[in-house]
């Protein structure tokens, strides 16, 4: 195996937000840095290229953020989604550090803008990237390159070689050729394992093969697996992944934001057998879309069908694929591969249970069904006005929870304490803080805070 021609102070595994924050921080501290990005250039940036905002604590108006969003409220929001599955110390550290991150991001090329249309409720808590996550990734790559950071694309790290409490080198395949990369310090920022369907199937069961992966196909968890095999401490439930209900016609990988469907609260959702299985009107969609990933995953063939009528078609963000459309419920059922008589019966039963009242699409309107085993508790209006529309739903995996356990200095621990020259940042360690659920923009916060810590610590180590 050939050695990489240059020797660097720090080798960083991964090319997303956390990796770039680490690289920039380390390079500014004077270290020489190599980024090993598994993807080819057009797909660089991991899942960061699909993101669009950053959740940020602030005690007063800050850049595009209005009012204030203080530590206690932020932590409370995190506790709500994780149901307490978080390391409070690390979580509070990330939250507090987020405030200084925003100006740092701006100083390193990231541009923010006011909230996007359709997301105004996040204007206080989340700062949106102008152009989205890929624009952020581009800005960071440019900043890193200007600082002398070298980037290798199509560089898949196969093995992290450990001797006692130190990492000596990485075994890497660069554009198909095996190469040994030696460095004095290493940062792992290579993401989760959600793109490895075999791993997902082992963890979740064979039905996971029907899941769609919303993000990059390059997060296969090779480095994570390798570290776990070498006794690195882990955190997060290995059987769990975060999934949302998305358009069933989305690409297998990398469908990203556009595959989102917001029609569920204004619809009834049936399974393959034409039966409803959950209250579609439980809460506003941003608070519920995550649970629908699991709900659909639990149905036969991991598929659901959201049915609306023409009264509802303009109430939600446009979908990337046009809905299936028919003049009758039976016609719609045939087009979607459902039994027409069963769907008719389900729709009739639902329509009969709807009550008079005032419909308010933007708030919990309490317009609920009466007498159904599975009620719809808000926005329950009869589906009776042709044309009728249908969307197929499938679970779309966003990320996995299993990761490396780190301390507040981003160090990775083996069975007998921290590894001396190894740090982790981003999705690969996010389970240390986010044990369950998800909070919009929090992944980027964890990546930025821990990327900067890892870069600083690694640079101090080699100085």
């Amino acid at each position, binding site marked *: 195996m050939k050695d990489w021609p240059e020797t660097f102070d720090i080798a960083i595994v991964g090319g997303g937000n956390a990796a770039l924050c680490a690289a920039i921080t380390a390079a500014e501290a004077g270290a020489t840095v190599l980024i090993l990005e598994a993807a080819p250039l*057009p*797909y660089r940036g991991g899942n960061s*290229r*699909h993101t*669009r905002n950053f959740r940020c604590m602030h005690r007063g108006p800050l850049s595009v953020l209005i009012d204030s969003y203080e530590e206690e409220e932020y932590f409370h929001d995190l506790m709500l989604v994780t149901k307490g599955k978080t390391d409070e110390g690390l979580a509070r550290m990330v939250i507090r550090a987020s405030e200084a991150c925003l100006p740092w991001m701006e100083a390193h090329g990231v*541009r923010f*803008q*006011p909230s*996007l*249309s*359709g*997301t*105004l*409720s996040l204007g206080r808590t989340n700062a*949106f*990237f*102008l*152009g*989205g*996550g*890929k*624009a952020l990734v*581009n800005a960071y790559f*440019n900043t890193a390159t200007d600082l002398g950071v070298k980037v290798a694309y199509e560089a898949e790290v196969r093995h992290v070689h450990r001797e006692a409490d130190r990492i000596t080198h990485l075994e890497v395949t660069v554009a198909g050729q095996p190469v040994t990369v030696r460095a004095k310090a290493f940062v792992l920022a290579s993401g989760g394992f959600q793109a490895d369907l075999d791993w997902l199937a082992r963890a979740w069961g064979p039905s996971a093969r029907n899941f769609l992966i919303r993000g990059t196909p390059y997060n296969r968890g090779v480095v994570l697996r390798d570290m776990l095999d070498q006794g690195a401490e882990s955190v997060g439930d290995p059987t769990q992944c975060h999934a949302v209900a998305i358009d069933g016609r989305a*690409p297998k990988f*990398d469908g*990203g*934001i*556009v595959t*989102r469907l*917001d029609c569920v*609260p*204004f619809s009834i959702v049936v399974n393959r057998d034409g039966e409803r299985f959950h209250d579609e009107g439980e809460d*506003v*969609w941003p608070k519920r879309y995550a649970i629908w990933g699991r709900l659909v995953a639990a149905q036969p063939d991991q598929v659901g069908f959201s049915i609306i009528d023409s009264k509802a078609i*303009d*109430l*939600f*963000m*446009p*979908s*990337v694929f*046009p809905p299936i459309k028919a003049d009758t419920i039976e016609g719609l059922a045939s087009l979607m591969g459902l039994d027409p008589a069963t769907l008719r019966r389900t729709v009739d039963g639902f329509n009969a249970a709807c009550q008079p009242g005032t419909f308010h*699409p*933007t708030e919990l309107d309490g317009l609920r069904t009466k007498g159904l085993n599975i009620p719809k508790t808000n926005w329950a209006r009869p589906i009776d006005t042709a044309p009728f529309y249908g969307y197929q739903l499938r679970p779309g995996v966003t990320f996995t929870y299993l990761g490396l356990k780190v301390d507040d200095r981003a160090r990775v621990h083996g069975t007998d304490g921290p590894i001396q020259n190894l740090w982790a940042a981003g999705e690969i360690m996010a389970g240390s803080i986010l044990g369950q659920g998800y909070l919009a923009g929090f992944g980027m916060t964890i990546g930025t805070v821990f990327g900067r810590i890892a870069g600083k610590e690694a640079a101090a180590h080699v100085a």
Partner: protein
Amino acid sequence: MSLDHTAEARRQIEICNACRYCEGYCAVFPAMTREKAFSDGDLTHLANLCHNCRGCYYACQYTEPHEFALNLPAALAEVRVESWERLIRPQSFARLFQRHGVAMTGLLVAMLAAFFWLLAALKPTSGEGFYAYLAHGTMVTIFVPAFVLPLALIAAALRRYWVEVDGGRVTWAHLRRALQDAAQLRNLSGGQGQGCNFEEGDRYSDRRRMAHHLMMYGFLLCFASTSSGTIMHYAFGWEAPYPLLSVPKLLGVPGGLMMVVGTVYLVWLKLKADPALGAPRVWGGEMAFVLLLGAVAATGLLLYAATGTGLQAPLLAIHLATVMTLFLLMPFSKMVHGFFRLAALVVEAKKSQKAPQGEMA
């Protein structure tokens, strides 16, 4: 209307409309969010509103090799050029000169021959300055129709455009807003003044806006110079040649210099930029148009510099030939972008005003 380009732009716009990450770059994306389905007229409007800053391309998660294969700047450039080729009559002229720099060069050569012949055949017996070579009355007889008729063709095309995009009635406020946007090239600002992604890939740069400003304001100064000369001639009986410290020269000399610098700047930028993010089939025509503007300005300046020398006559023929080519090609060259873009900005000022953007569920 080409089904291919329109259908492709519609496919891409529908993906963009489900994403909206690029909302902050320019007016195209907020305009898009008003619709759920896009008529051909909507696409014509969005295409003419797009200034080809390319910010959205480099920020896009769905560019090739992704299967969605988005390249919105190129898709809109194709629809935009096609809208000019369709709306301007005769369409065959528009197709010929929009696409082929060689055709423009051919016309220029013909004009050079024509003016050298004219200067030889119609040399007046008296007259001062360049009127010694071609009488004022002759120039007016030739250039007034060559200026007015192309403008009439453009006006007719804009009428068709207005119907197609459902422009409706506009107010002074809409016009003022559009002129402000055009004067600042707000849609080339990248949304925050950082500029385009034109000549340096995914790095922002404001150079294209600067180069365009030089060209546009230089052109307007030259146009004002000619207009002031006309006014001085007819209203005050003060005939050319004008001294350096006169209104036509004070406007025209800096204007001409700005156009020459702008030409070099724009050519350099265009050579560095990725042609695949525009409409590649009209690259040659666009380049020839920029060079033509440069030639008009450069020959005008040289003509002034050559006053009183033996070069005045041939330079006059050359300069008049370039001006004539520019006039005749106004409807059929990239020159029309200015008219259509301004129209699109007016329409957008109107449409954006009455469509408040509420939060969608």
